[in-house]
């Protein structure tokens, strides 16, 4: 079973998303939450990095955190799955371990 990585900071403010993408083995999952949801948005300075990562890892973004920030689900990078808190629980249970990038 693969690992679930969580990233909770904006890629504009910290390099956690970049580090996570660099260090997650193929087949892992990354969940973007809190200010980390900014990393899921299309047409930003970081979108290409995220698109490229999806060749190797599955990326999820927490819907409630998008809504809180007025970010539209329609504007997330194609291929990223928008999930809720229940799905977060399922993802945690489905993966061998959870690694939070701080």
């Amino acid at each position, binding site marked *: 079973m693969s690992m679930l990585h969580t990233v909770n900071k904006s890629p504009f403010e910290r390099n956690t998303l970049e580090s996570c993408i660099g260090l997650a083995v193929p087949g892992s999952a990354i969940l973007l939450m809190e200010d*980390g949801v900014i990393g899921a948005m299309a047409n930003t300075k970081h979108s290409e990095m995220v698109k490229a990562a999806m060749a190797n890892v599955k990326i999820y973004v927490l819907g409630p955190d998008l809504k*809180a920030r*007025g970010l539209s689900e329609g504007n997330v990078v194609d291929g990223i799955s928008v999930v809720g808190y229940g799905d977060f629980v399922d993802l945690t249970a489905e993966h061998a371990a959870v690694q939070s990038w701080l």
Partner: protein
Amino acid sequence: MEDGDQIIKKFMYMNRKAPYGTIYAWESLEVVLIAAAFDQDISLVFADDGVYQLMDGQNTEEVGMKNFSKTYSALGDYDIKKIYIEQESLEERGLSLGDLQDLKYEDEDDDWAEKDSIILISRAELAKVIDEQDVVFSF
């Protein structure tokens, strides 16, 4: 600048962080509303991830936090008329002014006509405005 005996200073509040993930955005707003009572020359800047603070349509129901984004529309009533948005910050995030709240104030010198508080400004121009300040508060 002097107004009677009172010295008016230029105060700038620099907002550079996204809302909700940290307390900075909310704290800044509270400080601004308090400071507005002192009749100083106030300007606000939203740059870097700070531009997300003004995103239209914020809905915090599911995260269980207070949605303070509606409070920004009250800034005009507190005589805060200069809200600078850095253009490059919007562009790097694939955003435009249309994604943000529309903030207005009523101009007492122009028969209370409603005017835009938001000023779109380039990084180079913003640098000059920052340099003119007496005090810059960073959030």
